[in-house]
C-alpha cells in the first residue's frame, strides 16, 4: 500500500486523526502546543508546506492566510502564531474529500512568526514559517 493509500485508510478509520486539541489550545508557547498535539520531534522546514501571508498586516484583527501542502501523506494543517496569547490558532483535519488548501482569516496580537505545521501520517511534521509585521494588534489586549 502506498503511503498515500495508507494515509487515506487511516483517515477512513478515523484514527489517529481526531487529535484532541483542547490541551494544545491551553499551551502558552508553540513547543507546548505541538507537544500537546502529539507532534513527534521538531518540525522540519519543507518546501512541501505552502503558507501565504502578508508581509505587513495593517489590522491584526483580520489577517488573511492561505494554508496548503503538497505532502502526499499529510493528515493535519496546524496553524500557530508565536506572539498570540493563545499561540495555537487552528487545527484542520484533512480528508480525501478536501484539497489540502484552506483560506482563513486570523487575529494577530503583535508582529510575530506565523507557522504552518503539516502533520504526516507517521506523526512527523513539516513546517513553513513567515514573519508578519502588525500595525495595529488584533486581540484586544492592553
Amino acid at each position, binding site marked *: 500500500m502506498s503511503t498515500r493509500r495508507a494515509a487515506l485508510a487511516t483517515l477512513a478509520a478515523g484514527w489517529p486523526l481526531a487529535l484532541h486539541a483542547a490541551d494544545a*489550545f491551553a499551551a502558552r508557547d508553540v513547543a507546548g502546543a505541538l507537544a500537546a498535539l502529539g507532534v513527534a520531534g521538531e518540525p522540519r522546514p519543507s518546501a512541501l508546506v505552502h503558507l501565504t501571508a502578508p508581509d505587513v498586516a495593517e489590522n491584526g484583527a483580520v489577517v488573511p492566510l492561505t494554508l496548503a501542502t503538497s505532502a502526499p501523506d499529510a493528515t493535519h494543517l496546524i496553524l500557530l502564531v508565536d506572539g498570540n496569547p493563545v499561540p495555537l*490558532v487552528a487545527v484542520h*483535519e484533512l480528508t480525501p*474529500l*478536501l484539497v489540502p*488548501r484552506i483560506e482563513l*482569516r486570523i*487575529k494577530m496580537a503583535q508582529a510575530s512568526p506565523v507557522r504552518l505545521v503539516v502533520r504526516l501520517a507517521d506523526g512527523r511534521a513539516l513546517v513553513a514559517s513567515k514573519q508578519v509585521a502588525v500595525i495595529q494588534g488584533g486581540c484586544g489586549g*492592553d
Partner: protein
Amino acid sequence: MATDALPMRLRAQALADGGVQVRVLMRHDMETGQRRGEDGARVPRRHIHTVTVWLNDAVALRAQWGPGVARDPFMQFTLPSAKVGDAVRLRWEDTAGESRSAQTAVVAA
C-alpha cells in the same frame, strides 16, 4: 453575540476546471477574553471551537479553532470530487455550547 442575528453564508460553486469551491462566512464575535468592553471589564472568552463540513453524508473537513480565528470567521476551500447538486453542510459549535448549521446545494460554475 452581537452578530448572531445575521445568518451564516455558505456557497458552493462548481469550478470550470473541476471540483467545487466552498466559501463560508460564519457570524460569531470570537471573543478572545482579552478585550475590554465599554464598562472596562474584560469580555469573557467565547469562540467557535469546532467546525465540521460534510459533502453529502461524508465528513470532508473538521477544524478545531482557538480564539485566534478572526471575528465572523471566513473560510474557503475546494472539494475535488463534489458535483453540481451535491449537498454541502457545515456546523459550528462554540465554547458556550451554542451551535449553528447551514446547508447548500452545489451550483454550476
